[in-house]
């Protein structure tokens, strides 16, 4: 079976005081549309953005993105 990259960005947002997509996007330096695309697994971000998201939530990268 083909492995895919999925993520927990939406769950992490909700668990971190319900931070909005716009606020997260501004903190990372991307557009809200990019956050929407990431959450829907329609876009895999660069390593830099992936690390920034993990840092923003204070969790390791593998807690945000899963390859399975």
């Amino acid at each position, binding site marked *: 079976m083909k492995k895919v990259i999925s993520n927990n960005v939406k769950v992490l947002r909700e668990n971190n005081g319900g931070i909005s997509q716009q606020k997260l996007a501004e903190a990372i330096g991307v557009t809200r549309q990019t956050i929407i695309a990431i959450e829907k697994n329609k876009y895999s971000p*660069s390593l830099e953005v992936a690390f920034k998201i993990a840092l923003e939530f204070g969790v390791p990268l593998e807690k945000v993105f899963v390859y399975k």
Partner: protein
Amino acid sequence: MNFSYKEKTLIASIITTVIFFGSYLYIGFKNLNSWPTQFGELLALVVLFIVFEIIIKSVLKLESKSSIEDERDKLIEITSYKYSYWALSATIWFVIFQLLLNTPFSKSFNTPQGLFYSLLLFVILAELISYIAQLYHSLKGK
């Protein structure tokens, strides 16, 4: 639908390109034999088009919350240029083969005006394909 700054600018670019260059090409093709191509005319059109685009983008920037372009926008742009390149290549090859095979259609390219307006049409079409592809990929991610 809630469009982003990038999507709004793409829509504006599509409309502006169609209006400006569409009308120029329409008049050009309509008067193919009676209206010689003027360099100054095309230059004025391009300058007017750029000024109009700058004004529209500035207005859209003012009314948008965020006007940044990120890595996804750049990736979409690169992907779209690929479509644009293929479209332009295909149309250029189309002209070459028409001329080589001396088809009835090749008569349109026999005059400098005919060739000029045809090539301009293909360049504008390639540009439009790039804009539409960017818009499609941008909206697809939502």
